[in-house]
């Protein structure tokens, strides 16, 4: 029998025949390492996938926020996915107003013009009226047009007491080289309406204090003179270009470039600056003023790898803009699966930014008033870092529970400003510490 002779010969001559059993055992491993993912996938095509999360964010002696996040995802066939997201958050507490501490007690007028508040000697002035509830909704649709092209569109709206924002985005993705390379082009537009309590302050106008006026009427007239009527708006146009490259079976690399052009009212109506004399004594308080346009560039590169029992990613982001504010962010996440249904994740982030060119911790009385000025620590020089841990459990029935705890510390820095007189006694660049905790449930 030639057939038999052929087979025998093959068995005798081919050494690799011996290794078929072990090669098969090895090849079959791939079938079972993805159990969780496959179950998730099977679920995804059938049902709504719902995530609910509750987050707490608390700064030491400052802002506290509670945020409820609900997301829902549904796939329609293999090619279309609908994502919905609703966020409700509530903020209370106070944030630094931008004014500097003094050796005597200070009096400030509330943003509404109704009433005033006092800040004790040596304390960093905080605006204690900070309280708001925000509702935000997003909807996104993505569609695989054909094996090479994928389209995504989205819209969102958010509303809080003094702010409203609506936006839309569209993106297109193209796969090349058997999908080992993906190019992404996206654009977004948003329109915001700013309508602060008490109206928008006139740029760099001086805060009027009721105590300095004999009658309420005289005070009101003076206060109104520092206000502009009506609301103002802000438009943002974004363009993003991205490439994702599969490097090997386990690693991929992603790089993005983003261009963002913001126009309109960019000033923070609640932030102020102290004008001090050479002894560091405050003479008056001015409302801040920012340019009405900002052009931002961002560069981002991230690599992500699948390890034997985990996932790791490293990323770097560089932002720069025509306010001369540049920042560098280094970030990593490392997830380790203790078992198929339980993982732990470590998150580290380091952030560093330079000050915007018009940032000043205070203004000097003997120098001419600049066109733009802000003492908002958020656009000053600073470094910040985050350390976080997260744990996730897979429960029966495809449910998943996770908890996250993060510590965030922000260290504002003096960018070469000489501190006059008594201001040297105070910490003008106080460290800010915050804790974030989140509990999520997916079903």
């Amino acid at each position, binding site marked *: *029998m030639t*057939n*038999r002779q052929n*087979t*025998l010969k*093959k*068995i005798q001559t081919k050494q690799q*025949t*011996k290794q*078929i*059993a072990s*090669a*098969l*055992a090895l*090849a*079959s491993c*791939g*079938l*079972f390492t*993805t*159990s969780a*993912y*496959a179950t998730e*996938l*099977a679920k995804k*095509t*059938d049902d709504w996938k719902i995530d609910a999360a509750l987050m707490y964010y608390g700064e030491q002696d400052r802002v506290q926020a509670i945020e409820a996040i609900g997301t829902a995802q549904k796939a329609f*066939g*293999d*090619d279309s996915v609908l994502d919905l997201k609703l966020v409700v958050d509530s903020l209370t507490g106070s944030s630094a107003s931008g004014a500097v501490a003094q050796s005597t007690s200070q009096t400030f007028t509330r943003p509404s013009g109704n009433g005033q508040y006092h800040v004790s000697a040596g304390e960093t002035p905080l605006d204690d009226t900070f309280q708001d509830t925000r509702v935000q909704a997003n909807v996104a649709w993505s569609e*695989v047009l*054909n*094996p090479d092209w994928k389209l995504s569109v989205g819209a969102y709206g958010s509303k809080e007491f003094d702010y409203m924002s609506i936006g839309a985005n569209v993106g297109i993705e193209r*796969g090349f080289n*058997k*999908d080992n390379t993906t190019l992404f082009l996206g654009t977004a537009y948003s329109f915001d309406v700013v309508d602060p309590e008490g109206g928008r302050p006139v740029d760099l106008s001086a805060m009027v204090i009721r105590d300095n006026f004999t009658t309420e009427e005289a005070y009101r007239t003076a206060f109104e003179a520092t206000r502009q009527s009506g609301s103002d708006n802000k438009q943002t146009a974004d363009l993003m270009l991205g490439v994702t490259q599969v490097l090997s079976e386990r690693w991929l690399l992603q790089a993005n470039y983003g261009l963002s052009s913001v126009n309109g009212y960019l000033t923070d109506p609640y932030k102020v600056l102290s004008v001090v004399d050479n002894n560091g004594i405050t003479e008056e308080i001015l409302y801040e003023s920012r340019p009405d346009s900002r052009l931002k560039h961002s560069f981002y590169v991230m690599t992500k790898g699948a390890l034997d029992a985990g996932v790791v990613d490293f990323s770097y982001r560089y932002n720069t803009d025509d306010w001369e504010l540049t920042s560098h962010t280094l970030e990593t996440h490392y997830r380790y699966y203790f*078992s*198929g*249904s339980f993982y732990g994740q470590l998150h580290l982030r380091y952030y560093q930014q330079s000050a915007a060119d018009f940032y000043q911790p205070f203004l000097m009385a003997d120098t001419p008033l600049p066109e733009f000025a802000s003492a908002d620590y958020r656009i000053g020089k600073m470094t910040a870092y985050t350390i976080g841990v997260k744990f996730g459990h897979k429960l*029966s029935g495809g449910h998943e529970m996770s908890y996250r705890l993060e510590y965030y510390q922000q260290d504002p820095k003096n960018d070469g400003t000489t501190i006059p007189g008594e201001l040297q006694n105070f910490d003008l660049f106080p460290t800010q510490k915050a804790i974030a905790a989140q509990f999520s449930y997916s079903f």
Partner: protein
Amino acid sequence: MPTLSLKKTPYTLSRRDWGYIGEFRAMASPCEILIACDELDIADDILDMAVTEVQRIEQKYSRFIAQNTLWHLNHAQGQKQSIDEETWQLMSFSQQCFQLSEGLFDISAGPLMALWRFEPNAPLPAHADILRTKALVGFERIDFNSRYLSMPAGMQLDFGGVAKEYAVDRVAYELAESYPAIAVLVNFGGDIACPIEKSVPWQVGIEDPQRLDHAAKVLSIRQGALATSGDTRRFIEIEGKRYGHIIDPRTGYPVVCAPRSVTVLAPNCVTAGMLATMSMLQGADAEVFLTQQCVKYSIFR
């Protein structure tokens, strides 16, 4: 893809002195799960998980269900189709099997097999039909990656040669993950996996193909898997030679001198099943092949 309504298969759960036995039908086979545990709630949950998972795999990859994942691949008419992670993994495994068997095991060989009817007095397929059909067979002509698959129009995939073993392993792995302390034996129509080591071994009977439903041999397993290839009720004789139902996709003809049945022990069921199938395809050399693989086996001729 429309949502498939999954009506749960009926199953029974019965008490035994060593635990519970759950029984149901799936993938055209009698299925059972032996559970070494005295708690009814847990046994019921284990059985429920097993039924859910095997049904999911059957709904997704059965050749006999219209509009499922496999149906879409087989009706793509040469168009590129998107595939999910699980299908990609099955395709990758099938590709390895195709390469390791040097073309003997081919999930695209279904149309060739369909030409052969293993019934008494069934006509032999015409050689011309075999040649014509062979043009639609060949795993090497399938182009796929982790996201897409495309193959020439007319080609057909059939995971039948691996799906039952895959379902056994998937159920076994899932149960072991959820209940790592409970020994179970998963048996879908003779394809068996025991994922958790059991102190007192399971006793598994192997049928003698000539005396069906009668255990000819008893194997003890503490942990591992076994699978059987061979259907002794189906064969034809051509010019006095007996042909089994195993077709060599490279020739289009049944393998000569294939054993009646091959049972192989391996760490998991897909490996055992594939070794059993490959040894059948070796015909007269089945024993030589398995001996070289250093695995435990049992062959009936």
